[in-house]
């Protein structure tokens, strides 16, 4: 009946036993129903299968045969898997309706337009679905990345050039202003350009006084820097003393003044 079925050793397995042949009368043991129907994607798929299997002309479907066969399947389906049946039942109703319309005596032919074949809509849907099945098959045949195509991707060590965050002066200003605004004690933290230069010299002086070394007071001043900077350096030393970061000592009047960090002798920055 069908070349395909004859060539095929078996079409499905039921409890491990091969189902050797699709029964001629379309009788299928109920146990096999699940296997068979899993192969169909819906009523259109089943219809197409029946049409192709019996070499029916899709454009001139013998409705009586097709409907009988289809309903045969659907009845079996209902006995085993009722919940799957809804879409198949709708199609059964539609086929029956088309069949009955074709059996009815045709009304006298109207003048205008060709008579519409009740099967036209079904045929249109079958052809459209079949075309999309074909399309699906063709798509599946195309090579797929990951299945048939392997992409090249060579290792790239990205750590070689670490990008460090960029900070701009404006960011610092904004950060500071945010802190101060949050703290709501702006007056205390207002910073002038002059204060900044004092702070800069505080850092400079502290760096000069590394490891508890005594440095002579005048060594802390750069005589070439001009009067304003000398004043600022002096302010820095006073501020450091006030913040108890340095100690200023003088053994006797007119003796050299020495400055040292206010911390233990044996202490170094690396003890932290």
């Amino acid at each position, binding site marked *: 009946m069908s070349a395909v079925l004859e060539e095929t050793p078996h079409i499905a397995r039921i409890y491990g036993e091969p189902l050797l042949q699709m029964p001629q009368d379309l009788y299928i043991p109920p146990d096999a129903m699940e296997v068979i129907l899993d192969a169909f994607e819906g009523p259109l798929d089943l219809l197409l299968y029946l049409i192709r299997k019996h070499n029916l002309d899709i454009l001139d479907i013998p409705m009586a045969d097709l409907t009988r066969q289809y309903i045969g399947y659907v009845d079996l389906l209902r006995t085993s898997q009722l919940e799957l049946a809804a879409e198949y039942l709708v199609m059964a109703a539609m086929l029956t309706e088309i069949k009955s319309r074709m059996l009815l005596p045709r009304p006298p032919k109207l003048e205008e337009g060709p008579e519409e074949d009740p099967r036209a809509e079904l045929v249109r849907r079958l052809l459209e679905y079949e075309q999309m099945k*074909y399309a699906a098959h063709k798509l599946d045949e195309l090579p797929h990345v990951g299945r048939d195509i392997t992409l090249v991707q060579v290792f790239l060590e990205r750590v070689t050039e670490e990008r460090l965050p960029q900070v701009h002066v404006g960011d610092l200003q904004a950060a500071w202003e945010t802190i101060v605004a949050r703290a709501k004690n702006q007056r205390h933290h207002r910073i002038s350009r002059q204060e900044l230069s004092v702070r800069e010299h505080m850092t400079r002086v502290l760096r000069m006084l590394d490891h508890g070394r005594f440095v002579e007071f005048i060594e802390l001043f750069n005589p070439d820097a001009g009067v304003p900077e000398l004043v600022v350096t002096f302010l820095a030393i006073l501020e450091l003393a006030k913040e108890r970061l340095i100690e200023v000592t003088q053994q006797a009047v007119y003796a050299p003044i020495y400055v040292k960090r206010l911390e233990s002798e044996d202490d170094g920055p690396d003890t932290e």
Partner: protein
Amino acid sequence: MMDQTQNEINHQNEMKQILETALLVSHEPLSLHQLGKIFEPEIDNDGLRTLLEEIKADWSERGIELVQVASGWRFQARSEYQRYINRLSPEKPPKYSRAVLETLAIIAYRQPATRGDIEDIRGVAVSPNILKTLEGRGWIDVIGHRDVPGRPGLYATTKQFLDDLNLRSLQDLPSLDQFVVNEQMLLTEAMMPAVEQINEEETETPSEEADAGTAA
């Protein structure tokens, strides 16, 4: 004069080397726009195309090839080498079900399409999982909504879909004109997938052995 020509050749070769390296390390196809930005000053598209065609020719006898897909240029293994590559990672990629493939075909060929359009053509309800599978793969997405009650999403295929199927545009999709002629093929291959699959499983092992035989 000689030197200048030589310099120019060296410069061209260096640019080719840079392009080749960029394409070899990239995860995704690179567009002309992206490739142009590698150089300072940028190269125009015609210049790039010439270089890319030369690289393609350089690799024509090798195991990998430079191809152009929808979103740009990429290197990929030639299909003849796939069987060797498969030996490195024996796990098989998952196969898409017929429901997924049919849904994909309808979206590819009838786009933009709503879920309702797909259901009309297939004659069955489309489970949300099918659409999710395809969206998850990056092959389809919602590009708008149809102005009807419920405002259903309109699905279309993506550039990634074209890339993954080695296509440059939707026009490269297989033509469906021939489908009626191929009815007999459909009956055996597409119409009866259950039968087909059972056969496949049985025949696969011997055919692989045959391949291996020729390779050895």
